[in-house]
């Protein structure tokens, strides 16, 4: 397909837009502006009140996270589900499994269980996920030349959903990281702006981490994320540690950048 054909077709297919719904843009802007001002004030106040009491923030109470170790039979079930998903896919890329059983390198339990695997040969490492929706497999190529400079981290409320909706009033943040790094990285350390820390060990470079961080009093997850420019994740910096616990790369400017240890998985294909 040429760029010109693409542009012409897309132009035609989007031209006949249905009428938009009721226009609440200005009201939404007013609400957002008020919320931003209130939230910024709340964050500053909470930071002052909380001071350096990071230890008190370490264990969430009523917002207990839904993260528990996965039992062996759950892993078997997870793999079986993903194997079935792979076998029903008709994409030739499914051949990365090579007909042999992959090695399970890590796994996480919870409402959206996942496992990282290693295909025979070690170059491709599939990630098996269940939910939201049907099971699927993503395969990454460790030898890509398109690696990201920093592993991707995903944040969501640390509380179970309320019905089908996220609990935006939640007082905790669930942070998820799934990636593969050079084996020199033995631990990935997360540090929040208010000093909370979590160390995720790697398994031959593979790391799957889910951890719940407490949000300062007076602010909810919805308010905290809405207050950030561009609605990006609340700031969590990463530091890589070697097997002796020495920091070898980080995002604070004092250490070599994270890209010194490139992410092994720039290409992905979904089955």
């Amino acid at each position, binding site marked *: *397909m040429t760029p010109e054909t693409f*542009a012409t077709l897309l132009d035609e297919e989007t031209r006949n837009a249905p009428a*938009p719904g009721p226009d609440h843009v200005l009201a*939404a802007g007013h609400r*957002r502006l008020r919320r931003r001002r209130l939230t910024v004030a709340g964050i500053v106040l909470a930071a002052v009140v909380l001071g350096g009491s990071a230890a008190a923030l370490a264990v969430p109470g009523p917002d207990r996270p839904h993260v528990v170790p996965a039992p062996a039979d759950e892993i078997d079930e997870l793999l079986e589900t993903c194997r079935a998903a792979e076998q029903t896919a008709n994409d030739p890329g499914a051949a990365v499994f090579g007909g042999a059983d992959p090695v399970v390198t890590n796994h996480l339990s919870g409402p959206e269980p996942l496992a990282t695997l290693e295909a025979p040969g070690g170059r491709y490492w599939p990630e098996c996920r269940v939910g939201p929706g049907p099971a699927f497999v993503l395969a990454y190529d460790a030898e890509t030349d398109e690696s990201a400079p920093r592993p991707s981290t995903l944040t969501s409320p640390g509380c179970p959903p309320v019905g089908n909706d996220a609990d935006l009033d939640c007082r905790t943040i669930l942070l998820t990281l799934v990636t593969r790094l050079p084996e020199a990285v033995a631990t990935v350390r997360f540090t929040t702006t208010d000093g909370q820390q979590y160390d995720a060990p790697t398994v031959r470079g593979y790391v799957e981490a889910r951890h719940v961080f407490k949000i300062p009093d007076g602010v909810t997850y919805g308010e905290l994320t809405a207050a950030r420019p561009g609605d990006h994740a609340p700031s969590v910096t990463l530091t890589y540690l070697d097997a002796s616990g020495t920091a070898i790369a980080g995002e604070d400017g004092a250490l070599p950048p994270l890209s010194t240890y490139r992410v092994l998985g720039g290409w992905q294909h979904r089955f």
Partner: protein
Amino acid sequence: MRRSQRDAEFEAYVAAARPRLRRLAYSLCGDWHAADDVVQSALAKLYVAWPRVARAANPDAYVRRTLVRTTIDESRRPWRRETSGLDGHDRALDAPDPGRPDLVAALQRLPEMQRKTVVLRHWLGLSVAETAHDLGIAEGTVKSHTSRALAALQSLLEEVHDA
């Protein structure tokens, strides 16, 4: 800036820009209702930043960046937030609903970054550098994603027509 002046300027801008923003959002998420949600969210953010953005005379670029950086996963599940460094971690969507136009449906089957790069590059006509800036990725990555996206779209459309 006084609020009445801000509101008047903003409303005039929204009236002019909204149709093309809806089309852009639709091409990225494949659903008009979701597109309206994404546009509304992007415009609400623009309102907050309006004095600064209007002074810099670049509301189009600001709202476009806001819109395309709202990942499809986020637009479906707006409570989730993903950091940058996503080149290798973009997620393809589930199979699209039947009844959507062919190309828009095919777009939804591409990995997120391929979908965004091809729309920004070849529909909006942004340069490689502008696309890279909007998406926060390297220029080389834009080129490879765009090339793969066009090839994949060709293949997907042939599948549809053969079926």
